[in-house]
């Protein structure tokens, strides 16, 4: 985190900081590629299972299924490749931004979305790391407010030490300490 993240002066309504000019921080450089690898391997596994069933000599399949399987495999492969590319492109534009008093997360290729979470409304936080996340040292930060589970603020693919720094920053934040 650079020093500039921590300056968020609020003077008057006219001089309000605006979210249209956020300083966007990228996610971990490993996040988008690893997601692509995971998606591609999932598709490969599905295709592999389908081809195995099609080619195996042990059991006689119903004729309908036998005719359907090649089509299914190709469809999964093509659509899968397309979606993986979309997700990859989408992952690359995800970014977050931390100001003195709020957190922001931007995402979406065609459907842009910016979620703004004031730190003073945070109830609790979770740092989530799956096995692959642990292997490559990234983490997912989840922030819960009283807005309900549907509106959990979530930043995926943060480098571990930055995720921990943000967590510490929020925990020691004066608004959270006061209202906690």
């Amino acid at each position, binding site marked *: 985190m650079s020093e500039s993240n921590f300056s968020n002066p*609020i003077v008057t*309504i006219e001089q*309000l*900081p*605006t*979210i*249209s000019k956020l300083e966007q921080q990228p996610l971990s450089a490993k996040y988008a590629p690893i997601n692509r690898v995971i998606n591609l391997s999932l598709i490969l596994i599905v295709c592999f299972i389908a081809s195995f069933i099609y080619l195996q000599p042990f059991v006689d399949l119903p004729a309908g299924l036998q005719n359907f399987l090649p089509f299914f495999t190709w469809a999964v492969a093509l659509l899968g490749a397309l979606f993986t590319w979309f997700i990859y492109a989408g992952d690359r534009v995800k970014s977050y931004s931390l100001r003195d*008093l*709020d957190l922001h997360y931007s995402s*979406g290729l*065609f*459907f*842009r*979305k*910016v*979620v*703004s*979470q*004031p*730190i*003073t*409304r945070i109830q609790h936080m979770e740092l989530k790391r799956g096995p692959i996340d642990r292997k490559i040292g990234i983490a997912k930060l989840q922030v819960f*407010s*009283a*807005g*309900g589970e*549907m*509106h959990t*603020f979530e930043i995926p693919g943060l480098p571990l030490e930055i995720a921990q720094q943000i967590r510490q920053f929020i925990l020691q934040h004066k*608004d959270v300490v*006061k*209202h906690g």
Partner: protein
Amino acid sequence: MDSRNKLSSIENTAPTDNPHNLNNWQVLSPIAILYFGVSVFKHLFSNIIFLIPAIAVSYKSILEHPFIWLPGILFALALLSVFAFISFKVYRYRLTDDNIEIRSGIFNKKHLNLPFSRVQNVKIEQPIYYRFSGHACLKLDTAGSAKNEAKLIAIKLDYAQQLKSQIQQHGQNSEALNKQQHPTADSNEFQSESAPNNATQEIVLNRRKLSDLVIHGITSNRIWIFLGGLAPFYDRIFNYIGEGLTSLGINLTELFSLQSHSILEVALYALSFTMLIMLLLVSFSVIGAIISFYGYTLNKLADKYIRRSGLFTKHEVSMSLSRLQMVVQKQDWLDVLLKRINLYFEQSSSFGKNLDSSASSSKIIVPSIKPQESQALIDDAYPENSLKVLVINNEFEAISKRFIFRNIVYIFMPVWLIGLSFTLLNGKLTLALLASILFVTLCGLVVLRWKRWGIARDKNFVYLRKGLVGVDYYCFPIYKLQQIQFKQNLLMKRRLLATVKFVLASGSLKIPMINEKLAYELIDQGLYQVESSQKSWM
């Protein structure tokens, strides 16, 4: 005074070994057995509903073998009463000055420990079978999940009231600690709070007469849910009615046959028949409204709203003003015609996970009030709001006309065109005509929907208007926001439009396709107010 009251009520509720020691575990009054029995029965019954079709199909064969079902039912009842009795036997509660503990459960032992300062919401419920013995059930909600609810199942009503005010006082005391640094201002401003006897200080804000409830029953469309539930039995019901009418000498097929009657006659019969059924269904809805809201009063005590209602089970819900997240003023099309309004005071949705608008939910609804009454209540809750002025001068900012274009061209038009080409290719002209009529109607509805959308704001509040034929107004203080979302797709970006979603503790609100600049202003102002006000959302 306080402690003496407590002791006497303990002697009423339960004979304890040492009534002078408040820290002893106490048992409930035996009337609680009835409560446990009924709640188990209710629980079972809600599951039995899924079995009803099976029972309905085979009920004749079941009826023919009374030696099977009679002992079965008796056994079930015996089991139920044993279960209720044991539940009663294992239930213990203990009260200290700032804490309540409850031990309960037969197989799953539960030990609940709830400090009074964590209590969000106190409800008093009086089922009809408690009314003769003067008992009540006290429910304490926490900010956590609905499962963390503590229930004191059978205590004397006056003791419940006293406990309630004690718990709420406790919450207030901890909140008002910093206020007490200015005792002079405090005593001037909060005179009603400092008065020792709270019961006499309640101000009645609103009452609902029986006629209002009848209107509420007619306008609230709960009947369609009822109809949906009955759908599997339509055939059977109609057969049954038909048989019944035949036995009375009325033959439906003959009545509606065009051979023996003129078209006008048949039409009149059909009309009166539908009217009769509608009347029946509406009366069900009215009965439902009366059961939920009979004897409705909305009172105010210091900064607390208290709602009491119920014909059989009396509910009492209280909510402190600081917990209020949003005021919603809803008008269905029928409400618009009758000039009535349903007003909702919404609090955090985790308190009332159940989404029903009946008497048991913890949101406060004021059913079918007149517009000026509604405005008076809103002004009482939010004195600085300018909803009335905004509505009169129509100062709501409309959303973009692209909303109409998008919905019609991208959503309804393709479906209509596909349907049209299919029906025309197959030569089904009437179907094509029907599809076109439907399409035009939907387009009309989209325009109406667009017309209803609107947003306005002032220094402290955001106001949202939406609806279709009816019109709903939402009003919330900006500092209550939990999170704000800005949404924009590439097409909207080209036209400088955006969608904003406001997330509050009571739920989320969306305003689609407003000016991008306005969207940014709303978000920036929202964040500014949340972060600078330092006011708690609770």
